[in-house]
């Protein structure tokens, strides 16, 4: 349904610049009205927007699955906000610096009332160019937030030297190679890069493509959009030939691809079983699939053990029919995943 209210989740470790970004979103003349769910009242003071305080209550579901959690406060607040539907165009959820984005995302999949009225648009993570590397070592939350992101603002770039910046960028890529990464000062960015991303929309899984292909050669010249943001440093000319290639010890992505058609009767039991057994360590997964004797592309994505997928559209004439999946998670059993996926070929 198209009349679902889009929800952007803002995460980022303490001091990275979430509030700066939030203030920018609320004060720029974009003609949109936002309902904002904040965790600390009083930090922002924009009169004509709806501002609600959240409690970050993470509730476990009674389904025997420890990673199936929802944000109880969001269930309540979104239900309340929807009574004023029409008074705002979108919702922004600001999380605390220590928050895990997964329960926020899972709320949209697991609560039918929330899922019917609102949809997750993107998880936007603000990272501090100067301090992120330290936080990745000592704060598991910071790593989760990077791993979970659809969009990353590498902020405060003016405070670090160029080699330090490419170092931290490489660290981020080692954890999450497919998020859109923007280098910013004081969160200065063209807002369409942050809002209205549709990153959780199954139709938009192709968005992962530039970085997806990057795991081999790092040719992401994604300056194909929004050339109008002037001196924002927002558009990315990252000719990453010189970018170091890090492998994070703990958090990795595994990307799989095959041009042979898959057998759905093998693939679905495999992926279900994989997320059942490895769900706690899989933060997110996304994929585009080509099944044997099926002329439609199948797209899916998931958070921990929850998977959501559907036929998207027919394969175009001349389009290369291949299947691609990526998993991002903690200590992923890469060999087991590769082996299992290889066994799904029809």
């Amino acid at each position, binding site marked *: 349904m198209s009349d679902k209210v889009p929800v952007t989740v803002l995460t980022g470790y303490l001091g990275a610049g979430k509030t700066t970004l939030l203030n920018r979103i609320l004060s720029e003349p974009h003609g949109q009205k936002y309902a904002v769910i904040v965790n600390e009242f009083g930090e922002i003071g924009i009169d004509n927007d709806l501002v609600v305080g959240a409690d970050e209550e993470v509730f476990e579901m009674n389904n025997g699955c420890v990673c199936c959690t929802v944000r*109880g406060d969001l*269930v*309540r607040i979104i239900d309340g906000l929807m009574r004023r539907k029409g008074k705002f165009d979108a919702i922004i959820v600001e999380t605390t610096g220590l928050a895990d984005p997964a329960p926020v995302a899972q709320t949209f999949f697991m609560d039918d009332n929330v899922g019917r009225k609102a949809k997750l648009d993107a998880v936007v993570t603000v990272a501090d160019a100067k301090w992120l590397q330290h936080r990745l070592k000592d704060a598991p939350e910071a790593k989760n937030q990077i791993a979970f992101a659809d969009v990353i603002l590498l902020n405060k770039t003016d405070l670090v030297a160029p080699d330090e910046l490419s170092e931290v960028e490489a660290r981020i890529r080692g954890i999450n190679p497919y998020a859109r990464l923007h280098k910013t000062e004081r969160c200065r960015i063209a807002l369409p890069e942050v809002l209205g991303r549709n990153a959780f929309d199954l139709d938009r899984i192709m968005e992962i493509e530039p970085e997806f292909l990057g795991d081999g050669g790092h040719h992401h010249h994604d300056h194909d959009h929004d050339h109008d943001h002037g001196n924002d440093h927002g558009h990315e000319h990252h000719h990453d030939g010189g970018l170091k290639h890090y492998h994070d010890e703990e958090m990795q992505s595994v990307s799989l691809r095959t041009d042979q058609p898959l057998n759905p009767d093998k693939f679905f039991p495999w992926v279900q079983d994989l997320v059942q057994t490895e769900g706690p360590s899989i933060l997110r997964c996304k994929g585009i699939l080509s099944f044997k004797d099926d002329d439609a592309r199948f797209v899916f994505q998931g958070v921990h053990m929850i998977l959501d997928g559907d036929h998207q559209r027919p394969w175009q004439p001349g389009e290369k029919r291949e299947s691609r999946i990526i998993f991002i998670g903690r200590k992923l059993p890469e060999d087991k995943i590769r082996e299992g996926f290889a066994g799904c070929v029809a």
Partner: protein
Amino acid sequence: MTDPRANIPSVVERTRPVKAGAPVVAAHFLGQTAVFVLGEGALVLAPRAGEARSVPAHGGAILSTAADADRIVTGGDDGKVVAIDAEGHSTTLATDAKQRWIDHVAVGPAGALAWSAGREAFVRTGKGSERTLEVPSTVGGLAFAPKGLRLAIAHYNGLTLWFANAQSEPERLQWKGSHLDVVVSPDGRFVITSMQEPTLHGWRLADRKDMRMSGYGARVRALDFSAGGKWLATSGSTQLILWPFQGKDGPMGKTPRILAPTEVQAEVVACHPKQEVVAVGYADGLVLLVRIEDGAEVLARKGAGAPITALAWNASGTALAVGAEDGEAGVIDLG
């Protein structure tokens, strides 16, 4: 497509339409006046004769409502608890000191009132004395027991039972998970909560025995005991689900009665105040009156529109108020 209900008795032609003009979130009766609570700001009073009129109550969303014979009590995102009478007079009963959302309100015996904001539950007796209790997490729902000043407060990992005029410690009933709406059986023997998962949980208060009522397709958002308390009518399925509470064990070890099957979710249920009849509103706008004994159905509203969001009987059971998500509403006269 053939309509399986093309030939059932109908009371649709007895409907007096009311233009609520905005999404209806609840309905009540004050005497013969039907009251439709809107999602934002106001209530619409529709007297039996004469024009319906809008009465402002809150400066924002109306999050919760409850009613006794004389007044409707509403809680808003403006931090206010407001009472409205049949003449449309509104009185602010309380204002939250921190302007928090008033998530839940409940009315009890002898003019008692309860409301909650965040983790705090407030009780005010008919005489005006007030007490506050903080529970372990945000309050999911409130309900008074039929006798005494005893409040059931649902929250994460269980329920708190509080005799609000006694000095005794509140009782905690534990059950893992997030408990939302709560109802107490009319005989006061059972407390039932709806959970974040599509299940109900219940306790028999005499021995605190747990009971689980599961099998739903969706979160149960409507719970209502039948006249006399023999059945608990619930939404959460494409049928009307009724749990038996007539025996001493309640629904323990029993299966529910399943009536009025459709293709879409039942959204709201309202039990007739005198007879064992349930009004059920569905996601496509259909409203059926269902007799529990034999499942006989009467068509009250045709299903071709927005979801039903509110149903209420008047005290004598001669009129049914119906409200929908698109602002369509009406009163069906059955007298």
